């Protein structure tokens, strides 16, 4: 790994970690904070966003923060979002953040020690772009021990989204996680949920898509985020509801179509491949249509011929000669039946 760039020097950190503490209480972010305290680069701050919590629960978070050593705890702030759920964690987080970038962490999840470091290295050469680390996921069970959370892994870590960021896939409802992304804060200032929804997954999807298309995406190439999936809790890898996505997609596309957008690396090749496929499909459809028209013409001709033949048979059966020769046809049939068999 390259050398860690020095801090910019404006007193603002490179990165703000937004810890969305929306389930499990303070105990669910204890290991998250521990992993942040172990970072190899200290150019970051932490904002713990406590959703739907009263003063007592916020106090639990503050006590937890104070239990860490001072050099770390002074860089951690606890922000209450009220207990009515009216404030979006992302809006509040961006408002409170001072970092050039913001990155979301969920409770129970942990980051690797070079999480900030790898963002810093990528940021040094990619000003203003979304920085994307690879996210590993792992299933865990949890148990409670004297009010604390104890984790036990069920399987090994897996990287469900190892490839480069797929902006077109996101547009087509293949949701990757917001975790692992460091998003320029400037791209999110003034952000509010545009979709009229409190669905965090949908909001994440909208933020990822909007920021990626506004800023472009650079890969750090490092696995630095471990998403710990517990039971059937909210999982960003699950498909979104089709109707909600359709509505959200229309809103986002409408917004983004009013300005220039930036495509992540590799998007042009994907677009070209899709254009080639579209062209080939159009040619194939044209060919199939021609075959279909030809078959339809033949079918029409056969139907017409059948109708002609039926009409001729009816005309023949209705003729005077056919009616007059009826006794002769009956006699002939009887003669064939009476003829001795050999």
């Amino acid at each position: 790994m390259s050398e860690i760039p020095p801090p910019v020097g404006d007193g603002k950190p490179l990165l703000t970690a937004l810890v969305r503490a929306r389930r499990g209480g303070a105990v669910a972010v204890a290991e998250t904070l521990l992993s942040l305290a172990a970072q190899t680069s200290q150019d970051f701050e932490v904002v713990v966003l406590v959703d739907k919590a009263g003063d007592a629960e916020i106090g639990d978070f503050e006590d937890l923060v104070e239990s860490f050593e001072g050099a770390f705890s002074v860089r951690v702030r606890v922000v209450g979002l009220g207990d009515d759920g009216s404030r979006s964690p992302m809006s509040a987080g961006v408002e409170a953040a001072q970092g050039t970038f913001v990155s979301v962490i969920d409770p129970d999840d942990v980051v690797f020690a070079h999480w900030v470091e790898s963002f810093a290295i990528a940021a040094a050469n990619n000003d203003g772009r979304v920085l994307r680390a690879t996210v590993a996921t792992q299933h865990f069970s949890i148990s409670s021990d004297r009010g604390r959370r104890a984790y036990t892994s069920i399987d090994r870590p897996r990287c469900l989204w190892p490839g480069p960021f797929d902006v077109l896939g996101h547009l087509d409802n293949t949701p990757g996680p917001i975790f692992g992304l460091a998003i320029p804060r400037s791209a999110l200032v003034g952000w509010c949920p545009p979709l009229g929804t409190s669905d965090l997954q949908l909001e994440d999807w909208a933020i990822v898509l909007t920021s990626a298309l506004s800023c472009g995406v650079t890969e750090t190439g490092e696995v630095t985020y471990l998403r710990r999936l517990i039971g059937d809790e909210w999982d960003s890898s699950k498909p979104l509801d089709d109707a909600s996505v359709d509505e959200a997609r229309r809103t986002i596309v409408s917004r983004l179509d009013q300005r220039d957008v930036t495509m992540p690396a590799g998007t042009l090749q994907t677009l070209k491949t899709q254009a080639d496929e579209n062209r080939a499909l159009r040619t194939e459809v044209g060919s199939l249509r021609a075959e279909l028209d030809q078959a339809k013409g033949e079918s029409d001709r056969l139907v017409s011929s059948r109708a002609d033949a039926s009409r001729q048979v009816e005309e023949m059966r209705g003729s005077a000669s056919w009616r007059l020769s009826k006794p002769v046809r009956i006699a002939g049939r009887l003669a064939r039946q009476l003829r001795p068999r050999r």
Partner: protein
Amino acid sequence: MALATVTLAGGCDDGKVPGLATPPLSVQTILHQNSPSDLDRFLHGLAAAGPQRFFLYCADVDFSWRTRLAGRRVIYEPTACVFHDKRLDRDGQVQAGDAEVYYSAEAALMMAWKCSRPDLVDRGSEGLLTTGSPAHTRAVETFRQRQAVGRLPKQLDLQGNVAQFVGYAYAPHRFAFNDE
């Protein structure tokens, strides 16, 4: 990275932890991770069990088991958290350097030998030689060379009262990195 919830307390025979007014827990466990030198110094007499021959791996297990062989107890604190950084590749597999591969293999053989489990030494050696890893082969060769010249550590726990082997591990693991 292993966010291990681990043990880290040395208990005396009377159940009290030195330096603490009351012991935090009374649950005993079979091993703890890490062996701070001050604890090592505190546990007088452990050096008599033989010089430490572990590097990078198994020093903590060796320390724990020697502690128990010396009549002390090791206390399990399940909610203590220790951050142990690892790196994953894009398949989600732990990236291990050559040194880690070599020393973990060497320590596994040494641990089995030291705890009087020649059957595990034989089985482990055979298994390591079939992986195709040069580091594993070198670890087996090194072990056998030491054995041939009598440079292996003194064997302990002849009755198997302390040592525990769970597959190739020394306790059931709470944090897995492989599909085993």
